[in-house]
């Protein structure tokens, strides 16, 4: 294909580096420096999309972030598909593969287009809400039809092969936008010695200067740009970020910058590089130099390919050497629109006419056009465009002075391109992100940034200042202001000489009237991507949707991927006219992040896959893995769940592990339990306040179990605490509760009882804990220590400091299984050494490693609770039948005491924890099952309580369960029923939760 619209010279493209790209299966050529859009225009591609609702052919309108139509699917492979890429922002690279997203069989000949033509009138705003209701049963069918039409591009089906990351940045001045204002600000701040970040969404700095033939100091403005960029890159404390969009402005001057590092090179990032990077910036001061977006005018059939905005036409000519047509008609309400005609003429193509809605406007640009002998039609407008897949001509008619009515006769002109300018809208998006409301300016004919609490400055186009000289000056001023604010001296900067042109007053006009009333005229599009028309907005207003938010939501205006950058202001103007209000009265729009869309991958950075969340390991983890353990996630910890042997089912493994503990000895890695070292003379008092039971008399060398409640009296954690010295204790917590308990202790110490002399330190990671339990555990321990561990010398609930397998250890004789047990704690650096010795020596005693599941079964046989499983934040110690663990003699009103005495906590018939024995011993009640008194009663049935723990007990040869029953502690022996999902009902008898060794003899031997 030839690039028929490419000029032979000029522009910032490199004609010596041709690139090949694919669009809808066809190959085309472009040049280095092209965007996908400029290359498509160079190749004369008119139709790039079919519209969302009416399926009308659409072409490229703009040349940047505001482009609503050229939204394509990118990607050469399945895994590298990217939906909804804006062709105007995608740099061309060799081998780029793109496709339009809607239209069947193709975007050029689309069947839906016919339906769009015919059914278009059936789809006013809100038509969904008014139909598809009858019959009710058919809604699902209607919806699936609607969903077929949904979406633009598609997600890949395969995993993303690229990586992304985030980096935290800090600076004195963050400058957003590298046009004349931004560059002047950056240069000033940099020379003043500030830490500066300047980011721009385009591939090179220069902003508007890249799109024009403007001169600075009598040389092309781009030479000044090059000089400034060169100087900036010499400062260590200046970070230059091209291809980087500042997408979010958050509270306290936190900004996010989305940097596209490799999207301009290929589909997939080169090895060892990240595709995109998020900069998380904390800036002392921010300078917004984001410029402005040109507004198209709203006129009949203004969506036909070939309708563009004037700034885009100039940009394609001056920057990319592409003239997007042959015969141009310009329609403008202001002087700037004339520039497109001048550039078009310079490019040697025909300017049919400049239609100025104003009467006799005189500015330097209008005069230049006159001197060039261009055909200027004043006080008139293009009221309608002819053509479907490309503009073929326009209808021009005179306008009333206000622009409200068409007057005079209609002349038709032949043209293939219509460039319009309704003025410019400052890019105030970022300034709105932190909740600041924009303010309308009649002189600017646009919204300006509103008052803000952020440390924010603005310069250039965002202030409605579109002359380069003014933009430069405002940039410099902002730079100096920022320097002063961060305590740096004024910088010495001389601005380049810029020619200031005389500009005639713009006309405040948005919606071009038609001969017919808007409701009957050909469609006049306000928001291209969402197919919102002026008529649609009028309908919304007529129906009573008068608040601008209502108008937007009812019509979907501004809800596209361009977020209404082109259309919103026009839409507000149309609504204002329909409601006889001014635009500010109609209300302002509030922009939210993101300024432009960001790949999910870029937002999550490295926190994906293996790094999504940490896996916490104990010192013995490697051993568990080697033994083929299955793991359970407990918090972030990986805990051995059970250790299956070849050919074993899970239940078989559990039975084997349980029996080993009951008949021989088992070993458990208990290192993950939270451990908190408590020191100070008031440690004991403190324990008494945070636990429900008594601690005053716990002797050195002894251990005690405790329950921890909230101020509401509900149990939230439990564990054993040992008295190491008169002023020294070590507390254990549940694995998941460790962090919370530590903060719980600190908050009470720091805010309520600072007078208590006590310090808390987390030592969870410091100690490795190997628990050996079972009748043979003493024999095993004896082999590895020369300390006398006999029952006389080492009693139940004692702890001793001894040497195990040559390693100094704290050994606690406490039991969670009901068997004789020793918890061996050693410094984690030696955990594996001791563990391996235990395994080695244990073989002859039938030592069997067991995991959390077996631990749960064994403790359930003993009726021991697990905080978090047998508690749910709604049960106090008495509900658990653990009144024995509450001391009301304590002088201090411990945490939970008052709470558990509130009226609802002391009432009868509370749900209480009991044991449950199934009538059929083989049946295991599924955990979570709900109890009822009469399974055959009508629903909803009153739920008596639920099963919190339930297992098969190989030891006892029958199932065991713990659960809650209303008033259960007084209902021993009574029967309850558990209806299951399959319709069957399990019958169970309420009993004590202690199923095994009720006297607790085995742990005492």
């Amino acid at each position: 294909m030839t690039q028929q619209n490419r000029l032979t010279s000029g522009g910032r493209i490199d004609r010596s580096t041709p690139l090949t790209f694919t669009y809808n299966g066809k190959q085309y050529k472009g040049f280095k420096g092209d965007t996908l859009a400029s290359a498509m225009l160079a190749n004369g591609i008119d139709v790039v999309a079919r519209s969302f609702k009416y399926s009308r052919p659409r072409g490229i309108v703009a040349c940047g972030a505001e482009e609503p139509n050229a939204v394509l699917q990118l990607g050469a492979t399945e895994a590298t598909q990217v939906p909804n890429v804006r062709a105007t922002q995608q740099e061309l690279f060799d081998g780029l593969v793109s496709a339009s997203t809607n239209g069947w069989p193709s975007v050029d000949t689309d069947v839906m287009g016919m339906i769009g033509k015919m059914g278009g009138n059936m789809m006013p705003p809100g038509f969904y809400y008014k139909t598809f209701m009858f019959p009710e049963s058919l809604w699902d069918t209607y919806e699936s039809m609607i969903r077929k039409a949904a979406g633009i591009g598609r997600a890949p089906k395969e995993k993303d092969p690229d990586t992304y990351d985030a980096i935290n940045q800090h600076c004195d001045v963050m400058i957003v936008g590298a046009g004349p204002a931004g560059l002047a600000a950056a240069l000033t701040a940099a020379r003043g010695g500030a830490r500066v970040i300047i980011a721009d969404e385009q591939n090179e700095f220069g902003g508007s200067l890249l799109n024009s033939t403007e001169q600075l100091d009598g040389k092309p403005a781009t030479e000044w740009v090059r000089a400034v960029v060169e100087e900036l890159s010499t400062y260590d404390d200046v970070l230059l970020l091209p291809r980087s969009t500042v997408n979010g402005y958050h509270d306290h001057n936190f900004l996010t910058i989305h940097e596209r590092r490799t999207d301009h090179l290929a589909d997939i990032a080169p090895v060892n590089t990240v595709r995109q990077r998020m900069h998380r910036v904390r800036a002392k001061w921010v300078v917004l130099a984001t410029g402005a977006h040109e507004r198209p005018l709203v006129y009949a059939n203004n969506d036909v390919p070939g309708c563009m905005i004037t700034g885009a036409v100039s940009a394609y000519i001056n920057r990319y050497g592409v003239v997007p047509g042959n015969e141009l008609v310009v329609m403008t309400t202001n002087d700037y629109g004339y520039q497109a005609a001048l550039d078009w003429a310079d490019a040697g193509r025909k300017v049919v006419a400049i239609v100025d809605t104003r009467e006799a406007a005189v500015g330097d640009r209008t005069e230049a056009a006159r001197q060039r002998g261009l055909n200027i039609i004043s006080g008139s407008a293009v009221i309608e465009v002819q053509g479907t897949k490309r503009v073929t001509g326009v209808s021009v008619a005179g306008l009333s002075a206000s622009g409200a009515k068409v007057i005079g006769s209609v002349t038709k002109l032949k043209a293939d391109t219509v460039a319009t300018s309704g003025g410019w809208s400052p890019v105030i998006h970022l300034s709105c992100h932190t909740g600041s409301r924009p303010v309308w300016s009649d002189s600017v004919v646009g919204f300006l940034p509103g008052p803000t609490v952020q440390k924010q400055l603005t310069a250039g186009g965002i202030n409605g200042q579109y002359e380069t000289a003014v933009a430069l000056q405002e940039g410099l001023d902002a730079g100096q202001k920022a320097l002063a604010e961060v305590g740096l001296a004024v910088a010495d900067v001389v601005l380049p000489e810029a020619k200031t042109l005389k500009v005639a007053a713009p006309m405040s006009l948005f919606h071009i009237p038609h001969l017919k009333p808007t409701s009957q005229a050909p469609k006049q599009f306000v928001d291209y991507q969402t197919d919102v028309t002026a008529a649609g907005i009028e309908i919304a207003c007529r129906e009573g949707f008068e608040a601008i938010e209502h108008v937007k939501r009812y019509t979907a205006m501004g809800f596209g991927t361009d977020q209404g950058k082109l259309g919103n202001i026009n839409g507000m103007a149309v609504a204002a006219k329909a409601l006889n209000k001014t635009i500010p009265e109609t209300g302002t729009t509030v922009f939210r992040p993101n300024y432009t869309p960001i790949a999910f991958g870029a937002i999550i950075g490295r926190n994906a896959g293996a790094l999504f969340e940490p896996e916490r390991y104990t010192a013995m983890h490697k051993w568990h893995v080697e033994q083929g353990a299955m793991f359970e996630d407990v918090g972030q910890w990986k805990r051995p769940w059970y250790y299956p042997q070849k050919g074993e089912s899970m239940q078989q493994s559990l039975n084997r592990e349980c029996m080993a503990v009951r008949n021989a000895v088992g070993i458990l890695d208990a290192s993950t339990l939270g451990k908190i070292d408590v020191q100070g003379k008031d440690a004991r008092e403190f324990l008494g306040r945070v636990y429900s039971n008594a601690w005053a008399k716990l002797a050195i060398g002894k251990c005690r179990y405790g329950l921890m409640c909230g101020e509401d009296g509900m149990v939230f954690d439990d564990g054993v605490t040992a008295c190491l010295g008169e002023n020294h204790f070590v507390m254990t917590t549940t694995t998941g509760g460790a962090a919370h308990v530590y903060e719980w202790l600190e908050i009470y110490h720091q805010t309520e009882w600072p007078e208590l002399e006590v310090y808390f330190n987390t030592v969870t990671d410091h100690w490795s804990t190997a628990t050996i339990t079972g009748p043979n555990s003493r024999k095993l321990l004896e082999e590895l220590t020369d300390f006398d561990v006999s029952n006389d010398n080492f009693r139940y609930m004692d702890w001793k400091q001894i040497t195990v397998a040559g390693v100094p250890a704290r050994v606690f004789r406490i039991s969670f299984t009901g068997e004789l047990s020793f918890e061996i704690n050693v410094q984690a650096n030696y955990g594996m050494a001791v563990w391996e010795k235990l395994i080695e020596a244990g073989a002859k005693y039938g030592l069997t490693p067991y995991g959390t599941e077996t631990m749960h079964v064994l403790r359930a046989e003993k009726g021991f609770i697990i905080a978090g499983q047998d508690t749910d934040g709604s049960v106090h110690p008495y509900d658990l039948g653990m009144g024995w663990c509450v001391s009301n003699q304590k002088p201090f009103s411990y945490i939970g005491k008052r709470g558990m005495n509130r009226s609802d906590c002391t009432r009868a018939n509370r749900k209480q924890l009991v044991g449950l024995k199934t009538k059929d011993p083989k049946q295991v009640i599924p955990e979570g099952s709900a109890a009822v008194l009469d399974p055959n009663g009508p629903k909803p049935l009153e739920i008596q309580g639920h099963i919190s723990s339930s297992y098969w007990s190989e030891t006892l040869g029958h199932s065991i369960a713990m659960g809650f029953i209303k008033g259960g502690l007084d209902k021993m022996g009574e029967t309850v029923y558990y209806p299951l999902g399959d319709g069957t009902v399990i019958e169970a008898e309420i009993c004590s939760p202690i199923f095994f060794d009720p006297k607790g003899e085995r742990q005492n031997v």
Partner: protein
Amino acid sequence: MLHIYCPHCGEYREEEEFHCAGQAHIARPLEPEACSDQEWGEYLFFRKNPRGLHHELWVHAAGCRKFFNMTRDTQSYEIKEVYKIGEQPSVVAE
């Protein structure tokens, strides 16, 4: 994202290092047993929840692990001041 000055570390840190522990200056009743259910309920659950200036308790969880108070505007999110436990605010919410 709030930027918070830790009065203990003496510098600004990112919000990610902190977390908010709710309304500040809620003292635990000295004699819980003397409280009615209503009074205990208010201590446990009822809060000022103002739109505007608010005194909050924060902890520098990933830093020095110390608690401190903050006076913050819940509408604009401006932090007026931070002050240590036991100290009184100089800007007071009505």
